[in-house]
Structures are given as C-alpha cells and as structure tokens.
C-alpha cells in the first residue's frame, strides 16, 4: 500500500513539481492549496506525510502544523516545512508548532525524495 503524501502550497507550480516527483516515485499524492484546504482534505483521508509551505493565505504553514498536531490522528505524522531560505526564526516557530523538518526551496527532485524517504520510510 503506497504512502499518501499531502503537498500544501498556494503555488500551483510548487504543487505540480512535488506531485510529479512523488507520483513518479510511487507515492499517493494529495494537493491542497492552503492550510484550510489541507485541514479539510486531511480529514477525509489518511495522510502519512505533510509537506507544507509556510506563507499561505487563510491558514499558514505554522498554523496548519498546530492544527494537525491538535488532531489525534496526526499527533505523530511527520510534517515537513518548505521554506525559501534558512530563516531561523520562522523555522523555530514551525518547530515549536510541532513540525518535523524542513526543505529549503528551491530544491531538486532528488533532494525532495531523499527527505521524503527519510521521514516516511
């Protein structure tokens, strides 16, 4: 049974890039365009890994992380933040909210797969 990964990003380009890469590697992929969308969709099916952007309208990556951690089903599910640069404060905020790790954008497909394999073996 392939793992389901949710990509949460308001940029269609990012979602597409991540989706293609992960589908190609044999994962199930669910796309969400912002935090609220992610909350709704993650309620409808089980997600094994969240990849989320930080800056999004409605509910940002950090608020989303808090929401997910407050949901019993996703207490321990890895949440990886997609950040643009090594802004430590934002990462720390994300970590405090319960995120598992981060990937710095722009990343190559191999880097993405390496991180995904690490947190979602």
């Amino acid at each position, binding site marked *: 049974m392939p793992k389901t990964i949710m990509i949460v990003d308001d940029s269609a*380009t990012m979602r597409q890039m991540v989706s293609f890469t992960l589908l190609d590697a044999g994962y199930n992929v669910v796309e969400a*365009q912002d935090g609220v969308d992610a909350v709704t969709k993650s309620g409808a099916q089980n997600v094994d890994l969240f990849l989320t952007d930080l800056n999004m309208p409605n509910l940002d990556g950090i608020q989303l992380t808090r929401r997910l951690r*407050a949901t019993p089903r996703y207490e321990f599910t890895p949440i990886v933040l997609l950040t643009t640069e090594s802004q430590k404060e934002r990462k720390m905020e994300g970590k*405090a909210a319960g995120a598992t790790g981060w990937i710095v*954008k722009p990343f190559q497909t191999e880097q993405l797969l390496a991180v995904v394999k690490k947190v979602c073996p």
Partner: protein
Amino acid sequence: MDIAALQLKLRDSFRMEAADLLAELDSAMLELESRPQDATLLNRVFRAIHTIKGSGATAGFKEMAAFAHHVEELFDEARMERLTITPVMIDLTLQAKDLIGQLLDSDGPAALAPACHEVVEALAKFLPHDVATSCTDQTKLGEGTDSRQRHNIFFKPHAQVFFSGTDPVSLVDELRALGEATVTARMDGIPPLANMNPKQCYLAWEVALVSAQSVAKIKEIFLFVEDESEIRIERDLTPITGQSESDGPLSAFLNIAGQSLQAVEGFLSQLRGSTEHDGACCKNYLRILKTFLSAANRQGQQEPAALLGEDILLLEVAIAGNVMMSDQTKGNLADGHRKLAALIQSLRKNNRRENEPPPPSAPPPSMTPEPPPEATAAQQKETPRARPTVRVDQEKLDRLMRSAGELLVARNAFPLLAKRLTMEHGLSGVGKEVKDAGDHISHIAEDLQAAVLSIRMTPIRTVFQRFPRMVRDICRVQAKEAELLLEGEDTELDKTVIEQIADPLVHLVRNAVDHGIESPEARAQAGKPRSGKVTLKAYNKATNVIIEIHDDGAGMDPARLKQKALEKGLITPEAAAMLDDREALELIFLPGLTTAAKLTDISGRGVGMDVVRSNIRQLHGTTTLESKLGCGSKITITLPASLMVSKGILVEANREEYVFPMESVVQTVRLPRSQIRQHEQSYFTTFRNEVFPVLRLADHFAVNRRSVEIAWPEEVPIAIVETNRGRVAVAVDRFLGHVEVIVKAMGSDFAGITAFQGATIMGDGRVALVINPAGFFEPLIDPEKTFAP
C-alpha cells in the same frame, strides 16, 4: 516523466501562475500607496513576491528568483515593521515587477541584467546592510573543510519528541552518514513498565563519530530538536552525562502572560462597546496575542498555541475583511480569553508547586478543556475560502465549444427525418418517436451549450486590473491628479471578448486621463476639485454587457472638432454647417482626426478613436459618446455577453435568406416608393431629416445584377445599417423576423470574402449567410458624399 519534460512543464505552469501573482502585486502596490503601513497589505505583497521567488526558482527561473529576492527582502523588513514603505520604494517595486514579467517572457535574461542591477542597487540603499548581503553570505555556508576528526556526541531527545513527528533514530542515522560512527544507546532513563508512558521518549544516544565534517555541520542535523533536547558535540574523549535544565524562565514567562491577559481584557471590552469596525483595536489585539504566543513557544508551552489559533484566525479575518465583528465572534474571543486565563492560572499553580519539593503523588495539573466541537465547526465556516479551480488549455475549450456547436446543428436532422418518415414512408409512429428523441437530444445540446458558454465567461476584472497602474503612471508623468473608480469588476464576458476589449479600453482610459482630465491648477480655476475622477464601470443589461468610461474633465468642444475636421479636409464646409453638436462629436471617430493640440506620447497620434470603434464593431459591439464642455465625457460600449450566439434579423433578397447582425441595424422601416429618389446613378432617401444612400441588397449579388433602373415595390422594406462610414439604407425584399444564430466561419477557401462574417444554419437545416456590414457596404459608399452621422 523525465526531468527535462517536467522542467518544461513547470516553466509553463509557472508563467501562468506568475501572471496572476504579478497582477496581484500591481494592485496591492497601488493600495499600499495610500496605506503604506497596512499589515495585511504588506503581507499580501510579501506573499506574492515570496511565491514568485520560491516557485520561480523551482521552475528554473534562477536569474528572476535572485532578482525577486531583493524585493522580497524589502517587504520582509516592512512587514516586520523595521522599515516604512515610501513612494520611491513603490516605484522601484513596480519597476521590478515589470522586469520580472520581462525576465519570464524572454529567453535571454542577460539583456535585462543592467536594468535589474539598477533596481537592486536602488533597493539596497533601503535595506539594512546585513540583510542586503545575507544572500551572498549564505552561499558560503556549509562548506566544512576540517580534516577527519573525532567527535563525541551525546543526544538526549526531549521526552515529547514524538509529538513533532520526529524519529530520533533517523537523526542518529544521519550522523552515521557523516562518517564512521559508533552508536551506543543509553537506556537507563526507561522507567518500570507500570510507570511508562508509551508516547514519551526515554532513550539517549552516545555517538563516537570520526568525520571530516565541521561541528556546525553536525549541529545542523539537530537544528529542529536542539532547543528541547540535550545535545553535546565535543572533540575530546571525555564521556558526557547530562542533567535536564531547570525551569527558571517560567516565572518570567508567567509575568508576560499576566500582562498580555490584562491587555486582552481591555481590548475585549473596547470591542464590546464599539458599534463599528475597530481595525486599530483588532490589530493591537492580534499583536499582543502573537507576542504572547512567541513567548509561550520559547517556553515550550504548546497549549496556548492550540487555544489561540482560532482567536488569531478570527482577528485576521476581521482585519482582512475590514468588517465589524458579529456578537458571536466577540463571544468566541471572550471564550478563548477565559480558557487562556484558566491555563495560565494552572501553570502558575504548577510553578509554585515545582519551586517547593513536590509531594509524592501530586495530582496531574488540570488540563484546559478542548473548545466544543460545534464552535470549531462554526468558525471554520467563517473562514473565507477560494473555490477550487482548474486551468484548462484554451485549445481544449475551443474544441469543446466547436463540438457543442456542431451538436446544435446536427440536432436539426431529427425533425427533418421525422417528417420524411411520416410523409414519405407513412410511418407516423416511428416518425413521432424520432421526433421525441430529437427533442430530448435538443434539450441536452442546449444545456451543454449553456455550460460551455459559462466556462468561457471571465470576469472583466482581469482587464480592469491594469488600469489603476496606468492612470497612476500617466498622472505622474503629466503632473495631474486623478482617481480611478472601478465598478462591476465581476461582470462576465466571453473570454475572446475580454481579450479583444483590452486594447480599445486602454485607449479610452488613456484618452480620458490624457485629454480629458485637466491639470490640477486648471481644475482649481474652473472651481472643480484638484483631483479628477475617471470611472470605469461594467454591468449587464439584457443580454448585453455595457462598459462605461466616464471622466469629469474638460469635455469635448464640438466647434473645435468641426474646425479640426475641416482643417484636415475630412469634411466639406457645407457638411460641417449641417452638423449639430451631437453629430459633431461623432467626428472624433473619423480616421485621421487628432483633437489634442499637442501630441503626447501617452495617447499617441490620434490613431485612437476610429480604431477603437472598428475594434468594438468587430466584437459586434457599439460605441456611443456623450460629452459636455467643461463637465467631462462619457463613452458607452455595448457588447454582446457572448460571441457564440448572436441575434440577427433574417431578411430575404432574391429568394435567398441573409442575416443582418442585430447590433449593426439601427432601425427597420417600410418606406413608400415615393420617398426613394434617384440622383444620377444612385438612389437616396430622407428619413427623419437624415439623408441616406439607398442600396438594394439583391443588386449586389452576381445572380441578378441591376441593369439600369429599379422597379421599386409600393412599399420598400429598409434596414438602416450602421457602418464605419456612416449609415446606409439597405433595401431588402422581405423581413422574415428576428433569429438567434451561431455564426460559423466559412472555412479557409472563403477567407478573402469580407462581405460576410460567416454562415449560420437555420432551425430547418438551411444555410443563411451572415452579412458583415463593414465589409459589405463600406466599399459601396462614397465617403465624401455620405458622411452624415
């Protein structure tokens, strides 16, 4: 999919996305000009540029991303309230935005490098030094050059590590990847099974690592867990054991919490008392909550975050929506506040208890109850949400539309078939069944057509969006003041119309500001407000969409227009003398007429109005003009909402059927023969004090060319048709009524024929040609004699 193909696809999809983002940036910048400290706006700008940069880099636009980075820095500083946006910065950002657009369109970004560099230099002046250079510094990081060295690493994850989804073993595995590692797990923290909480981590690891990596690089692995975990990385061989840190800072945190609670109480009562939206109060409220939260996070307190998430959302929605809070929302905020107060209270108790020796079996601290589920659901409903959308290739949509059109035509076969079955084969039963089946398919076809049409409908917003910027730029160049008001941006038009209406509208709005709006001084002298007003308004009227461009500027002078037209030899003095004011205004639509005394680079060389009118006519629309000297001008464009189905008048000439597009027919009348007079080789008529040349439709087909004289019937059916060269009276044999037609192009073999727009298939399956008034009648009109609007 291979990487190259993916990259190509990503580039395309990013170009589409970027177009939206750049438009968003544009409109946000203009709003920012009047509210440079609006936090929501600053965030919007930041997010747009941030996405452009991040996704752009992913899609392979490296130069563009590097360039966008500098703009992002500017707005990052601004939203952190470390810098205030000035008009100069807005100018720079708009320049940068244009450059980004060009970088995306061009294949060789090198040509734009000097322009980009200029903007970057200018931006750098506003940025604190460390920010401006951080980008280049980053590239130097992470290049550890130490030779192999022995490290002793101790790693004791905090007990709650699993709650962040982290598997500590994976971190240990990462250490192994750095070099030769000897890993020892320390299990002495594991309590007896009865006391063990399976959700907690009790393990610690000692790793002896021989690696060429720097300490910094090793530390990086633990970045996400280093605050709460115990991590030691040392180069000597001394064994390390650890003790957990004391909770000293908790008291300081509780102090902050107490102050925050007090402030929030104040805001709550202020909100309760106010009868309108109190943006400042909401913002301060939000700021306090956020400050408190970051303090809580530093303290490792996660409950406040869970509690306040909803409150923050509510406040953000209220601020973004700029609306007054409902009593229910206020109630929710008060609820959140009460729960937080309870939580702080219990933390305080714990703190006191912890500072004393703990009793052997202290009861667990009471946890704050979760917010009731129905409240959560209600709040989720309030969150504004974008509807999910699909981007579709235009070609696919066109194909769907063509097929729907074909289906509409093909259904016409059923009634004919039914008729033949009944009449020719005597099978009336089967005939009726075929007819019923046909009716059913017909309904479905109509539904399908309506659905396809609605897909093609696009809000005019996409066109209107560009105008605030344009008006602003013109005003800057000409030192004018003008405000652009947009109305009805949600009015929908067919996508093709939207694409083609943009250029004419650009012309008209430019004209309104350039020629219409006077200088602030002139306006003041005329007793008008210094700032002019241009209104761009769209709305639906019957099946049409009306677009109005209205300015309160100088208006047009009919006398001057007449004089101009005379000077240019566009009309004769006799014709000029006959024109009333309304007709004189119409002169502006004559090719080659420029009204501005001085040509400017804004409105160009008077190519405007005639081209505007003919472009709009190509969209089956009409243009009318009203203007009052000293008060302003108004141009009204009437467009069919959809191009696919249009209305027409079906006429008969020479036993053939033709369709006139409804928008080109001003009037239909039946004139007595006596009113049609002959003058040399041509005919003319006078109708309501206007003189029209009369053309007989039947004469202009080779089938039956007129020899010398026409034998007019007693009463002549005439359609007064509007063309770019004035109106003509077209005589037909018979009016057959109004029809709805789907105009189909006649195919490439007939592409050279301009007299017809295309053909349409009538309900009974016969084909009728649809006349293109411009192509059909204009070559037949002698412009000198007939210009009489």
